[in-house]
């Protein structure tokens, strides 16, 4: 109890400190930081020919989570485009979309490779529930945005149909490329841990994007046994919870039956409540006085002090209540200002930080940046 109180007090102090720093709240300065972050992702982490989002540069396997974070980033770019309407965002979104469609078709239609090597033959297999979760998120948000052309919407619908058909064939379990063995983290049909919302989110997005009544029927059949399981998120870290948040966002968008919507909103608030104490971890990173290169070599610090706090903020902004979302605007501004974008070698926090920013703008918690696509009205000049 004392620890809980201390954590909450720390969070409030952290938020208050960030609020007090007026420089970090300047919308132009924040937007410039986001542009820097975007440039880093675009030029160093998105593979130009394949469109794959490489998650690690020079440390570990860059293709391990290419579908997972490619999906999150496509969702982020689709949201950004709805706000800015700029051609650079559109071009990058299409590049990332191409990478995800490559992963979905290169081995067998409906099987999601984690990533493809430049030879376009060698792939990372053994995909997890997480890869599928973000794949549906990114493609569904893209298809539902003003960015998608009718042929692109058809391509996304075809990919969803192939993936859902394969999953249905395998009893809603994710199998390896052989189609026989369940993948290591492929228990999609399970209800827990944090599995119920994943399958429901995929079916809701699949039904909406394909328009095929089969997936709506499957969604209805899958919902009843899973609705009661959308709780007890407090045991999980934000790198898991952000994926549940992606699924809950899909459900809030496409399964709007009032009795279900209430459950999804409550689940979103519980996810955000579980994430709130994890935001404070960023101060571990800020307080560490070692040179930045040493700090970024400390894998434990990168996880506890960067990835987990940033993904906590993103998840809260995705599905938290207005009050929960307001609480993390200060920490988000501080993260945008202090995050060592130029030295980062790990994409997940970069992707989640940009997603958090656009989500805060969408929710009206940060001011919309002025861009070339939204010229100043003549009367204001």
């Amino acid at each position, binding site marked *: 109890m004392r620890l809980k109180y201390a954590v909450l007090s720390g969070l409030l102090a952290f938020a208050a400190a960030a609020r007090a720093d007026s420089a970090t709240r300047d919308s132009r300065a924040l937007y410039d930081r986001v542009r820097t972050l975007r440039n880093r992702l675009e030029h160093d982490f998105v593979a130009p020919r394949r469109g794959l989002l490489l998650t690690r540069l020079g440390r570990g396997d860059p293709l391990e989570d290419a579908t997972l974070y490619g999906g999150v980033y496509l969702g982020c770019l689709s949201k950004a485009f709805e706000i800015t309407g700029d051609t650079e965002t559109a071009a990058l979104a299409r590049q990332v979309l191409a990478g995800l469609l490559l992963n979905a078709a290169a081995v067998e239609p409906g099987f999601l490779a984690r990533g493809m090597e430049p030879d376009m033959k060698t792939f*990372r*297999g*053994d995909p997890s529930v997480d890869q599928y979760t973000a794949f549906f998120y990114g493609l569904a948000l893209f298809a539902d945005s003003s960015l998608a052309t009718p042929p692109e919407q058809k391509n996304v619908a075809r990919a969803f149909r192939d993936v859902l058909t394969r999953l249905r064939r395998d009893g809603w379990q994710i199998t390896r490329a052989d189609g026989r063995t369940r993948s290591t983290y492929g228990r999609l049909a399970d209800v827990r841990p944090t599995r119920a919302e994943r399958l429901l989110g995929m079916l809701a997005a699949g039904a909406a994007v394909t328009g095929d009544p089969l997936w709506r029927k499957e969604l209805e059949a899958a919902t009843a046994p899973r609705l009661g399981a959308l709780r007890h998120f407090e045991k999980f870290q934000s790198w898991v919870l952000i994926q549940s948040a992606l699924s809950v966002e899909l459900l809030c968008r496409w399964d709007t039956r009032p009795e279900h919507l209430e459950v999804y909103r409550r689940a979103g608030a519980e996810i955000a409540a579980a994430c709130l104490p994890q935001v404070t971890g960023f101060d571990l990173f800020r307080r560490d006085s070692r040179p930045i290169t040493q700090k970024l070599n400390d894998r434990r610090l990168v996880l*506890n002090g960067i990835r987990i706090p940033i993904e906590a903020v993103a998840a809260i902004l995705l599905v938290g209540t207005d009050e929960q979302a307001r609480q993390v605007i200060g920490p988000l501004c501080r993260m945008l200002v202090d995050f060592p974008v130029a030295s980062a070698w790990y994409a997940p926090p970069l992707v989640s930080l940009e997603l958090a920013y656009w989500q805060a703008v969408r929710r009206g918690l940060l001011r919309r940046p002025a861009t070339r696509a939204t010229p100043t009205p003549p009367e204001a000049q």
Partner: protein
Amino acid sequence: MSRSAAKTKPDRIELVSESSHGSLERVRKDTGNWRNGVFEAEVRDAVRAVSFS
């Protein structure tokens, strides 16, 4: 990394990343003492520092 047999498309080669198999365990190890959603010792120290700074 290890290679497994070719899959559906005959010229495809699956390269299994060792880190992907161990990612969950690795993350658990990296986060240290996690209980009730809090990194106990580290967050306690951080909160103390923030509270008094």
